[in-house]
């Protein structure tokens, strides 16, 4: 079971040992935002606040751009990254929509229709094939929901 593959699950970053080591300082920076005085200091000057942490430049840029997919790639864990969008006064659904590339309205509507179907979303190969078809104009949209 230990060597089961999870890198072929599409659109998903598993927070494993590699990601955890890569993202340690990014995630600990996020934890600092649990304190109101730190949230205030961060929002007043994001660059200066981030420079207090031994994070990579790519991590800092991803935070300042609020590019959550990039933060995940750089070792962020979503429960830690949640402290950033909470600081911005945003919800989990806002952040989730952002990571899918959908508008929050489109995303919320998909959830009300029953969420994203697992059909075509289990393996990278089927997921990427569906997106390639969209790029070629063969189908209108990539999201296959349960509605």
């Amino acid at each position: 079971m230990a060597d089961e593959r999870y890198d072929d699950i599409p659109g998903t970053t598993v927070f494993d040992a590699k990601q955890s080591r890569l993202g340690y300082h990014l995630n600990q920076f996020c934890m600092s935002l649990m304190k109101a005085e730190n949230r205030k200091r961060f929002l007043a000057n994001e660059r200066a606040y981030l420079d207090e942490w031994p994070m990579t430049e790519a991590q800092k840029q991803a935070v300042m751009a609020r590019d959550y997919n990039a933060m995940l790639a750089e070792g962020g864990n979503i429960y830690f990254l949640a402290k950033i969008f909470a600081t911005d006064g945003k919800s989990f659904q806002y952040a989730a929509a952002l990571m899918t590339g959908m508008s929050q309205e489109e995303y919320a509507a998909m959830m009300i229709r029953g969420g994203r179907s697992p059909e075509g979303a289990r393996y990278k190969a089927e997921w990427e094939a569906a997106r390639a078809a969209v790029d070629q104009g063969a189908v209108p949209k990539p999201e296959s929901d349960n509605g």
Partner: protein
Amino acid sequence: MAKITAGVASSHVPAIGAAWDLKKTQDAYWKPVFDGFEFTKRWEAEQKPDVVFLVYNDHATAFSLDFIPTFAIGVAERFQPADEGWGARPVPVVEGAPDLAWHITQSVIQSDFDLTIVNKMDVDHGLTVPLTLMFGQPEAWPCKVIPFAVNVVQYPPPSGARCYALGKAIRKAVESFPEDLNVQIWGTGGMSHQIQGPRSGLINRDFDTAFLDGLTKDPEGLTRIGHVEYMREAGSEGIEMVMWLIMRGALDDAAKEVYRFYHVPASNTAVGHIILENPK
């Protein structure tokens, strides 16, 4: 003697707590969610548990990446609702059950489950949202609570089989406690959901339904679901369902389903809820 009389499982979506706290329970979006717990509120008022052993996960609140316990038991007199970044939820302080918690700690560790013992820990929505769903908004929670935090944030979490076996050790521990106590065990988290990356929003009703069915029909079968299957089928955060198996392991093989509720969506998540009673 203390006895585990029932198991309860429920999702613990933070938005449910926010909807309650902001008095949105009658809004069209939220009403079906809260209505789904009306039976349970009446049932809990009749059952009057003395102690709830509450299995949940911390969401980067009490535990950062500095240390990551796989299984952590709260043995304190009380636990404060955490400020998760937008102020603490306006809910009662959680009163612990230190005598029973320490007894369970000793018994379970001597059954070869190496728990982390926690004397000070704030509890986040993972623990307080299920209390709100089952008990509403009392002045004080109507029972003592033993918080039991499971790591499902850092991969890998414990396996379903390990969780189920741990449940059995918890049952043995509770049943060897001399005081007459009505103890419930709750498993929280799930059901299918993914809240990270481009695949966010995944919901798998068929998987969730089979899981709910399996809790009575074939719990041992559920213990063979591996981490990758949870993530692929039920979303990366659907892996939280291993916590339900601690609850199931602590019940009798003949436990009966007395109530079930399933609803999509609460924010990004499929809300699942089940009550299992041990034979009297």
